[in-house]
């Protein structure tokens, strides 16, 4: 959207951001330069908004000698001060608010291995933006409007504030039916198989959840030598960390292979989502397994040793997210994730950034989301159950 059109949209009393949120397909079809221009306008506006409304953030900007006037080109986005993600865990994280606490509509959290929750607060405007964004992106990449979802995670009723579950639960609104299979810390693979069988030939069956819990289901199928054949229109949709509580990484390649073998799907049906509770942007696998960044936001990959410097496309670095959807807190976040942006053109023909998740920063004390704790809890319960067994084997 050229600058004059941006201004014209505002003159009509409309929001250029909300227009962008509902035009995902069109944005992915834009020439790269035009898309970059639009992102610059949206992010610059958001930067100006937080600069004006957030004393803590403005002081940080003044200290670094940057104001909204200093953002003129897409290259200038690296000058925008970043909020380290650990600040969301601090007990005085109210200083991150650009609105009053009474304007906060919703709190979401994620808890990793440290056990300290990262709490993200959203005002009504941010919730509007996030909802528009999540549904537009789900529609763009999944085209789902029917089917049945087997959720291998606890329900939002059990843990209503957990960001990962909330984001996955929004997908349920597009389905005909769904069922959460983890209740009160119980995980019964036999029930999952029975539910899939009950839905067979009635609905396209999707399996949705964090990688560890889907992997746990596959481990059962493998041990019992059961092979499920899902439908051609089925998806395996994952959101959450790939590192276990023990520190072991779950291999994406191995996970895909096991989904193909034990759930009877093709690689194009396995879709992972990268997202953080602190951000409203995500990166989501297309049918070729390439993760596309939400087109109205910007992923800036920094040199971990010199954080104001971007690494070249294709090189691994520390992810900074520039999220113009966030109105309650500055959406300019320095994550603890190592990623790389993919060079060249996308196989699906979409414009914009594509990324590959590499790993959590080795020095990070934190990894995973609540899924990593659920996985550990299930392991502990299994261990407790097996320790009561008679040790005599024959």
């Amino acid at each position, binding site marked *: 959207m050229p600058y004059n059109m941006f201004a014209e949209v505002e003159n009509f009393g409309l929001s250029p951001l909300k227009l962008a949120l509902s035009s995902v397909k069109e944005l992915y079809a834009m020439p790269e330069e035009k898309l970059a221009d639009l992102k610059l306008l949206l992010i610059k506006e958001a930067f100006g908004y937080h600069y004006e409304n957030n004393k803590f953030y403005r002081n940080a900007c003044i200290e670094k000698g940057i104001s909204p006037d200093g953002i003129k080109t897409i290259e200038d986005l690296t000058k925008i001060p970043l909020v380290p993600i650990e600040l969301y865990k601090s*007990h005085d994280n109210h200083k991150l608010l650009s609105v009053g606490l009474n304007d906060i509509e919703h709190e979401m959290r994620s*808890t990793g291995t440290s056990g300290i929750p990262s709490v993200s607060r959203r005002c009504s405007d941010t919730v509007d933006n996030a909802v528009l964004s999540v549904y537009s992106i789900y529609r763009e990449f999944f085209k789902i409007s029917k089917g049945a979802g087997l959720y291998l995670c606890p329900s939002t009723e059990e843990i209503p*504030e957990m960001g990962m579950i909330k984001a996955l639960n929004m997908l349920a609104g597009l389905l005909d039916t769904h069922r959460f299979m983890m209740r009160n810390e119980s995980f019964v693979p036999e029930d999952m198989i029975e539910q899939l069988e009950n839905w067979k030939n009635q609905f396209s069956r999707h399996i949705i959840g964090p990688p560890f819990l889907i992997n746990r289901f596959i481990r059962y199928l493998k041990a019992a030598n059961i092979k499920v054949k899902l439908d051609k229109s089925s998806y395996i949709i994952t959101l959450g960390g790939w590192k276990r509580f023990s520190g072991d990484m779950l291999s994406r390649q191995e996970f895909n292979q096991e989904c193909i073998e034990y759930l009877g799907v093709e690689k194009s049906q396995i879709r992972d989502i990268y997202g953080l509770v602190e951000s409203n942007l995500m990166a989501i696998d297309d049918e070729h397994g390439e993760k596309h960044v939400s087109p109205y936001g910007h992923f800036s990959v920094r040199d971990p040793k010199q954080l104001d410097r971007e690494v070249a496309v294709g090189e691994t670095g520390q992810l900074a997210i520039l999220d113009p959807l966030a109105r309650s807190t500055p959406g300019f976040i320095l994550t603890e994730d190592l990623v790389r942006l993919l060079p060249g053109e996308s196989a699906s023909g979409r414009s914009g950034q594509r990324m590959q998740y590499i790993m959590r920063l080795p020095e990070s004390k934190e990894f995973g989301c609540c899924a990593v704790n659920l996985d550990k*809890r299930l392991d502990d319960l299994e261990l407790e159950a097996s320790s009561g067994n008679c040790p005599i084997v024959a």
Partner: protein
Amino acid sequence: MYSALIVNHFIDPEFVGDIASPQIEFEIGNSVCGDRIRVQVNTVAGVVNDIAYRAWGCATSIATGDIFCESVKDASLSDLSARSDHEIEAMMGELEPSQHHCIHILNELHRTLITEAQAKGAL
């Protein structure tokens, strides 16, 4: 969404901090996904004379830590052990349904303080 009581105790808490060598120290919370509150207390002759807390979680639970400390400071442990569930609930004022879990947190803070005080011979 938030009452003035919660806003004030969240934005401007009086008791956030640490005590160097506390007589009583405890933490409550949910190990998987929930809020965490750590409390440090010193007592003299069965009366709480110093208290500090740190909390991690939703705004209401952070405010709950401060409301607890404010109500406990200078109170006798025997009076606190007699505080009823109804009195504890009333301390939180008006809450939305999604904030009601903080009444449970406040109850647990009371119960744990008394249990820990007994274990340390302070009550």
